[in-house]
């Protein structure tokens, strides 16, 4: 055995740091301890090395334990799938570890013979994150938020849809369009118009192989860190680059030189000849989609509803029950039976434009208790600079502990919100019995200036409260962010434009 040179730890450091690092791997550190350890790792190469070696031990222990417990033979080629669930006992499954495939020469043979590493898991690669007047040629329908898997087709007759890939790449498709999800880094488009924001989805300029590509029957359009739009129609590609650069490789004109287009260029490309011709009138063609690229739709970071009266200190909808995917709203003569919803959005990871307009979107669910709701819902926001009064939770309110009595900005003794720290945004009339308001119907609330509802921690907290309703029995049931079928609350955020 040998050791590699490197910084070493004093014995007392060693024991203390081993303990801390093992706790880190067990997720047993609190936030302060974790942050302190991370800060020390920044400055201490010996600690980083220690962490890495202990991580290696973790794998050794798993391999050792699994082998001793009768794990599938690491050299076996059956089944040769790195993420397959392996039945271990009735009702239990265990993921087949990757080491079982890569631990031997036979494992490598498996990789190459079966191409296992090319067969990615069949999980969702992208999500439809927004629809605008979408008319689908088939499923999916408006209001749902389907996860898209490899090979899934998107056939849109009219309208627009936003598809966000797992890698963070956002695409806007404008009908009529016919497309197919190829991977988390590529989309195949046989006809139609689309705009793409690769933006900063990769932490730095990605090398080839990690770049996003649009594949058409005749060409491959590869992003080089960019925002761009294109339309594909019978061997002709209209392309406008808003930011960065794009490379177009003609598949029809074999051996032709790739065409590189940079920001500000608008060209029509004949894929048969691989010739690009400047076309100034294209910018207007894509202007609407370009604006879409400078908006981002984000789901709620937290959402929950609370009840007054005897439930004022109870946390509703928690505990994994059926109400986790629902926000219930209601008002009565007495505030004690009211239900209100709190929704928080976290914009801290978004390059938002505070002076731009935002839009809040929420959707109603199947009527609760099969009773239709007709009434007016008030939409409020916590005023910027909000400071919680005693008893109230702060800006980082927790949906696991939110109650009527501690919800920030709640008017605990009134039928409607009159809290001085809440600003009214809109009143929305909802009638779930109306034919044009089926479950999944989206209600959009414009917020003229994002800054007017933005807190200093880059969060936005919105509050929904029924102002009036027919009868006092029915609840209004809204889709929460955990709803598996209907998209939960969303905020369409304006992004900084160059």
């Amino acid at each position, binding site marked *: 055995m040998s050791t590699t040179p490197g910084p070493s730890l004093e014995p007392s450091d060693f024991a203390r740091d081993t303990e801390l690092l093992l706790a880190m791997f067990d997720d047993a550190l609190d936030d302060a301890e974790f942050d302190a350890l991370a800060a020390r790792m920044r400055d201490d190469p010996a600690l980083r090395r220690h*962490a890495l070696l202990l991580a290696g031990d973790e794998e050794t222990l798993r391999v050792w334990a699994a082998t001793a417990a009768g794990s599938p033979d690491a050299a076996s080629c059956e089944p040769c799938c790195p993420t397959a669930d392996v039945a271990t006992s009735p009702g239990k499954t265990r993921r087949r570890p990757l080491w079982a495939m890569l631990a031997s020469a036979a494992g490598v043979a498996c990789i190459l013979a079966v191409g296992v590493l090319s067969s990615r898991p069949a999980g969702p690669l992208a999500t439809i994150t927004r629809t605008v007047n979408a008319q689908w040629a088939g499923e999916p329908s408006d209001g749902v938020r389907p996860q898209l898997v490899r090979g899934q087709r998107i056939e849109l007759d009219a309208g627009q849809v936003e598809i966000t890939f797992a890698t963070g790449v956002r695409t806007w498709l404008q009908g009529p369009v016919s497309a197919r999800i190829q991977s988390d880094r590529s989309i195949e488009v046989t006809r139609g118009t689309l705009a793409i924001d690769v933006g900063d989805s990769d932490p730095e300029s990605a090398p080839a192989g990690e770049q996003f590509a649009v594949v058409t029957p005749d060409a491959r359009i590869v992003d080089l860190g960019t925002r761009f739009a294109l339309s594909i129609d019978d061997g002709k590609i209209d392309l406008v680059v808003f930011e960065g650069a794009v490379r177009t490789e003609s598949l029809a004109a074999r051996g032709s030189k790739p065409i590189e287009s940079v920001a500000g260029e608008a060209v029509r490309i004949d894929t048969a000849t691989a010739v690009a011709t400047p076309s100034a009138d294209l910018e207007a063609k894509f202007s609407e989609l370009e604006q879409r690229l400078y908006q981002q739709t984000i789901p709620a970071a937290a959402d929950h509803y609370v009840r007054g009266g005897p439930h004022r200190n109870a946390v509703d909808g928690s505990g994994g029950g059926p109400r986790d995917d629902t926000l219930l709203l209601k008002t009565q003569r007495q505030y004690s039976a009211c239900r209100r919803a709190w929704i928080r959005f976290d914009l801290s990871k978004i390059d938002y434009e505070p002076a731009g307009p935002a839009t809040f979107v929420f959707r109603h669910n199947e009527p609760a208790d099969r009773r239709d709701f007709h009434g007016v819902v008030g939409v409020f926001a916590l005023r910027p600079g909000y400071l919680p009064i005693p008893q109230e939770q702060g800006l980082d309110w927790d949906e696991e502990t939110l109650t009527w009595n501690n919800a920030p900005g709640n008017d605990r003794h009134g039928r409607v919100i009159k809290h001085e720290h809440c600003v009214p945004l809109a009143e929305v009339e909802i009638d779930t019995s109306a034919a044009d308001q089926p479950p999944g119907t989206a209600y959009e609330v414009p917020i003229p200036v994002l800054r007017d509802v933005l807190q200093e921690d880059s969060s936005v907290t919105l509050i929904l409260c029924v102002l009036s309703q027919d009868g006092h029995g029915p609840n209004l049931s809204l889709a929460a962010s955990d709803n598996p079928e209907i998209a939960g609350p969303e905020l369409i955020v304006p992004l900084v434009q160059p």
Partner: protein
Amino acid sequence: MPQNEDGQHEIAARLMQDRRALYSYLLTCVRDSHLAEDLLQEVTQIALESIGDLRDPDRFSNWLFGIARRRVLLHARKAGRERNLPADVVELLASEAEEIGNRHFLDREEALRECLEGLPERSRRIIMQRYDGSINHVDELAKQLGRTVQATYGVLKRIRMKLAACIQGKLGEAAP
């Protein structure tokens, strides 16, 4: 790098050389063995797909850890509210893991296996139960052992500390 069949074998062999260091790096960054395996799979796939872009084969490890670092940061961004190591620490860890290299991880594995043999039977059984994949969390092990979760953490910690000291002793003895 070549992309014919021989070349593919060569790439796979290079991936294997760096695999242990790579996995340790990913696990340190994300602290979840299933997620680390998923990321390792992604990194491996990207490496196989884009090997043609590697201009200097001598920098294979550097290139591979670059892919891994980007996948970790991408995951951290997507994970949002989860606790993540800062980006600069993720980068420093990549350099450190590359520098340590697979050889040292393999030496350490050998030492750890010897240390496991030296454990009392009861301790060895507890470690086996913890790591054989049949439980997802220490709570389940605590139930199996009939102990409280806190006591089970304590037992595991003592055994792991003992193993870590044993490894250090063995590698220290073998050091030049």
